[in-house]
C-alpha cells in the first residue's frame, strides 16, 4: 500500500501541474487532462465524437500488438541460435561477430528509408524495423550468456560423466538462461519503442498510424491517448515477461 502511494505520487503531481497549466485557457496547444480522458473513452467505446477515430482503439492496439509480438518472435528465432553459435563456435564468431558489431550502432530509424525501398511502404516495413530493433539486444545478451559460463561448471559436469556433446544442453543453456532472458526482455521493450516509428509512414492501422493521423488533424488529445496506450501496453507486456521469468528462473538470486 505504501509502495503504491509512493509509485503514484510523482505522476499525480505531474498530472496536477498539467491540469493547473491548461486550466481556463481558451486556446491551449496542450489539451487539458479531462479532454484527453474524454477522448480516451471515445477511442475505446465511441459514442462521443463519432468521428474517424471513435471506437478504433482496439483495432489499432491489436494491429500494433500483433506486429510487435510477431516481429519480436521472428527476431528471437534468429537471434537466439545465432547468439549461441557466435558465443560457442569460434568459426561463427570470426565470421559474424565483426559484422554485427559494425551494424549494431546503426539506429533503427536510419534503416527506415532503406526498409521502405526493400519492403515497400506499409506494414512489412514496420515489421522489419521492429524485428531489427529487437534482434540486437537478444543477440548481444545471448552471446554474453553462453560465453560467460563459469569454467568450474564444465569441470563439475565432466567429472560427473557428462559427454562433451551434452555440455551445451545440460550446462551452457541453463547457465545462460538469465542473460538470455534479460535480452528477451530488453528486446520486447524496444519493440514497443520501434513500432511507433515503423507505423508512422504508409501504414493504415496501428497506434503509430493513429498518432500520425491525429497529428495531421491537430488532435493533440488523441496523440496523448496514443502515448498512454503504448506506455500501458509496453508495461503490461514487460510484466508478463517478468512473471514468466520468475517461474523459469526461480533458482537465480537475481530473479526468483
Amino acid at each position, binding site marked *: 500500500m505504501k509502495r503504491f502511494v509512493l509509485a503514484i505520487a510523482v505522476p499525480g503531481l505531474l498530472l496536477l501541474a498539467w491540469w493547473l497549466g491548461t486550466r481556463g485557457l481558451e486556446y491551449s496547444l496542450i489539451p487539458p487532462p479531462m479532454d484527453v480522458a474524454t477522448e480516451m473513452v471515445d477511442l475505446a467505446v465511441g459514442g462521443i465524437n463519432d468521428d474517424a477515430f471513435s471506437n478504433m482503439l482496439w483495432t489499432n492496439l491489436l494491429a500494433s500488438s500483433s506486429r510487435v509480438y510477431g516481429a519480436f518472435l521472428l527476431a528471437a528465432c534468429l537471434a537466439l541460435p545465432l547468439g549461441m553459435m557466435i558465443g560457442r563456435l569460434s568459426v561463427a564468431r570470426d565470421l559474424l561477430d565483426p559484422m554485427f558489431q559494425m551494424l549494431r550502432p546503426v539506429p533503427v530509424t536510419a534503416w527506415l528509408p532503406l526498409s521502405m525501398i526493400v519492403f515497400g511502404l506499409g506494414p512489412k516495413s514496420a515489421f522489419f524495423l521492429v524485428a531489427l530493433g529487437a534482434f540486437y539486444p537478444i543477440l548481444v545478451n545471448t552471446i554474453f550468456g553462453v560465453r560467460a559460463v563459469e569454467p568450474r561448471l564444465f569441470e*563439475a559436469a565432466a567429472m560427473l*560423466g557428462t559427454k562433451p556433446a551434452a555440455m551445451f544442453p545440460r550446462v551452457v543453456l*541453463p*547457465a545462460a538462461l538469465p542473460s538470455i532472458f534479460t535480452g528477451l526482455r530488453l528486446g520486447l521493450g524496444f519493440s514497443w519503442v520501434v513500432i511507433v516509428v515503423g507505423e508512422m509512414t504508409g501504414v493504415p492501422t496501428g497506434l503509430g498510424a493513429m498518432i500520425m493521423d491525429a497529428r495531421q488533424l491537430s488532435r493533440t488529445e488523441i496523440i496523448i491517448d496514443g502515448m498512454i496506450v503504448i506506455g500501458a501496453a509496453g508495461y503490461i507486456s514487460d510484466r508478463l515477461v517478468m512473471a514468466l521469468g520468475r517461474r523459469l528462473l526461480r*533458482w537465480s538470486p537475481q530473479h526468483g
Partner: protein
Amino acid sequence: MADIIRVERVAKRFGTFMALEGADLHISEGEFICLIGASGCGKSTLLRIIAGFETATDGHVFVGGREVSGPGPDRGMVFQDYGLFPWLSVRDNIGFGPAARGLKKPQVRETVDRFIDMVGLAKFADSYPHQLSGGMKQRVAIARVLANNARVVLMDEPFGALDAMTRERLQDELLEIWARTNLTVIFVTHAIEEAILLADRVVAMAPGPGRIVSQTQIQLERPRDVSSIAFNELRRTLSAQLHR
C-alpha cells in the same frame, strides 16, 4: 591391497614454470591421503592431473589399472568453491551424475534419496544452492560424487572456505562416510592439523619446483585427539619437514 591409483614420474610445466616434477605416488584402495604443502608446491596441480582436468607434461597416472586421459565419473571431485549447478535443486544436483550416465528416473530418485539422507539434507531437497550455507553446499557436493558411484574422491581444499565450527563438523562427517564406504580419498589442504586429523598417510610437498618431499603414515587411532602428545609430535615433525 592393490594400488587403485599409481602416479608415475608425473611432471607438469606451465610455460617455463615447473609446477610439478617427478611425482611418484601409490595409493591403496580405501586409503585416505592428504596432500599438504605451501602454495605453489603443486598439490592442486597433482590432484587436477589425477582428476583429468590437466594433462601431465611427462609421466603417467593410472586409476583402477587404466591410464587417465580425461575427467570421468570414477573420480569424483569436490571443489573449494563447491561448483554446484545454481539452476538445479539440491535433489537435482545430486542426481546430475546418475542422470548423465543414463539412469532411469526412478533409479535416479532412489539414489538421490539415499545420499541426501546420508549428508542430512532431506529437508532441503528442493532448495537451490543460493539458499544454502557454505557447509550445506559442500555436503551437496560430496553427496553428488558419492551418488555417482565414484570410487575415488578428490578434494581440493574442500573446507577451506568454511568457518571453524562447520569445518570440524564436516571433517567428522567425511570420516564417518569414508569409514562406511571404503572410498579412496585424496584430500588437498594447507592445514597440517587437518591433514593429521584425517589422513592414513600425509604426503608433504614443497615448491620450487613442486615435488613430493616426504610421506608419513599416521598410526594414531581414530577418533583422533588434536590435543594429545602424539598428535603434537606429528605436527612438529611435519611442520619441520615442510619448512626445511
